[in-house]
């Protein structure tokens, strides 16, 4: 075979297979990055959770010891319970967002600006949201207590009270999350079929019945996304806790994501294996939802 022949067959091979070669080449850089920084680390974390490791020396294989220790760890239990509270209360962002969206879905002058102003807490970093609410709750100079004082109620130290602190942080987290759900619903409401609404009006539907039977079914895609982002947001909560209470008072505001960080990189020493075990538990909780989301998406893909 001469050089030109080889070149020719090379070119035709490429030409014949370019429907295979092209996607591989386009995928490669992104996939490689994602593999190295996201997919492999998940597997590595699972592996690390079977070791005792300070992050520097040789890791010791300890089998399920980390998980057995978790079972008797009071702080872990508190974290799981708080995660459940976050999950349940965070879902209030969905009706909350819908409520504000319905309130703002009008065409009066200046409404666009109002919508943007209602939305923009979502754009602020959680760190700043955390600071803003910490000061808002402050027992000596916080606006909350200034208002409570004005109506004759005693000062409440929201973040200093173990019974209230987690709820105080969740409220801070709900603020941007409600804004997010609101914008999803505003977009959804914009696309509601006006003919169906008119037809339903002629049939005498209004108010709640109209909302429940005519509007909400049409808002299903928006509700689905609101549900996904709210669940993920609830389980990812870390910044607010770190900024507002740093897990306190007396560890009462810990959640799994925060407790994991504390164990692996916090001031109590570097327990990478134990931290990884906590992360695996959090991951498994998340996996239930991820599986559900993917299943829903897959059904949509097949339908499309």
């Amino acid at each position, binding site marked *: 075979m001469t050089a030109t022949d080889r070149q020719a067959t090379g070119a035709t091979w490429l030409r014949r297979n370019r429907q295979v070669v092209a996607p591989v080449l386009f995928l490669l*850089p992104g996939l490689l990055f994602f593999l190295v920084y996201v997919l492999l*680390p998940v597997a590595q974390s699972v592996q690390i959770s079977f070791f005792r490791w300070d992050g520097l020396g040789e890791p010791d294989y300890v089998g399920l010891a980390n998980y057995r220790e978790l079972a008797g760890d009071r702080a872990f239990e508190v974290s799981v319970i708080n995660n459940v509270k976050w999950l349940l209360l965070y879902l209030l962002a969905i009706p909350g967002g819908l409520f504000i969206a319905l309130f703002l879905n009008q065409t009066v002058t200046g409404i666009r600006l109002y919508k943007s102003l209602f939305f923009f807490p979502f754009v602020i970093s959680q760190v700043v949201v955390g600071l803003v609410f910490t000061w808002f709750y402050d027992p000596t*100079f916080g606006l909350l207590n200034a208002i409570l004082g004005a109506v004759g109620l005693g000062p409440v130290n929201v973040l200093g009270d173990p019974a209230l602190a987690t709820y105080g942080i969740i409220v801070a987290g709900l603020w941007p999350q409600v804004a997010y759900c609101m914008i999803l619903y505003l977009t959804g409401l914009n696309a509601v079929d006006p003919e169906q609404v008119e037809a339903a009006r002629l049939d005498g539907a209004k108010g709640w019945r109209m909302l429940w039977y005519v509007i909400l079914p049409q808002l299903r895609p928006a509700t689905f996304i609101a549900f996904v982002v709210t669940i993920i947001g609830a389980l990812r909560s870390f910044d607010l806790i770190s900024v507002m209470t740093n897990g306190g008072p007396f560890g009462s505001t810990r959640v799994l994501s925060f407790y994991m960080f504390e164990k692996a990189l916090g001031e109590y020493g570097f327990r990478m294996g134990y*931290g990884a075990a906590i992360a695996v538990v959090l991951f498994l909780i998340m996996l239930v939802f991820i599986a559900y989301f993917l299943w829903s998406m897959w059904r949509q893909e097949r339908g499309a």
Partner: protein
Amino acid sequence: MFPRPIETQPRAAQLTYQAMIPLALVLWLLPLLAVAVFSVKPDADFTTGNYWAWPSRFAGLENYGKVFLESDMPRYLLNSVLITVPTVLGAVALSCMTGFALGVYKFRGNLLIFFMFVAGNFVPFQILMVPVRDLTLELGLYNTKAGLVLFHVAFQTGFCTLFMRNFIRALPVELIEAARVEGVAEWRIFWFVVLPLMKPAIAALSVLIFTFVWNDYFWAVVLTQGAESQPVTAGITSFNAQYRAAYHLMSAGSIVAALPPVAMFFLMQRHFIAGLTLGAVK
């Protein structure tokens, strides 16, 4: 339209509504307004316990001047820019390609790879933390902006791929097929046919990723330490430690730290909302 347009209601209802919106807005933004008021109060108001009365004088220029001229804040802001902008470029570039590959070609495992990107994007950060920190240490990139950029690019590629692939799916297939019939090479189809059509998606993703990455705190704490590489979200805690109890300065600092994404949102509002609500409408 639902609810019923307010214009069709009696005049009284219209007036009530128009009075209620600003009121509701003030209530909604109350915690933030409080911080804004703090940030223009003079130091003296805090020592005399004048927290909520009218500021004794306007000290906004002085407070914000201090934040910009006497603290590490400009440094942190610059770090944030140097982390965020390369991440946006990297993640958008990578996901244009992955989105193109997954949106245009039919091959075995297409949906599987796509779902892998989607699932990875939902994973809790903590399950990545220890290995990613180790990897960054091994690469010698711990406490550098580059270390953060590499991770953010990789992680954001998940969300961006989801976004780009769905966007490309909605483009007319005929355009691509026509180009193929003409014998145009695949990369030229990508560059000259598809990429120009993706401009709105690129704009939407850029503002979204800018905001996500600018606001990241967790990875900033895990992968960086000092003022030389920390972004503003992590820097604000050091800033607050430096100005402990100087609430007028801490408030001004927080507002400065929060401002860039807010500005980005108000400037690119349409793209931002289009990106955020993709899929919210069938």
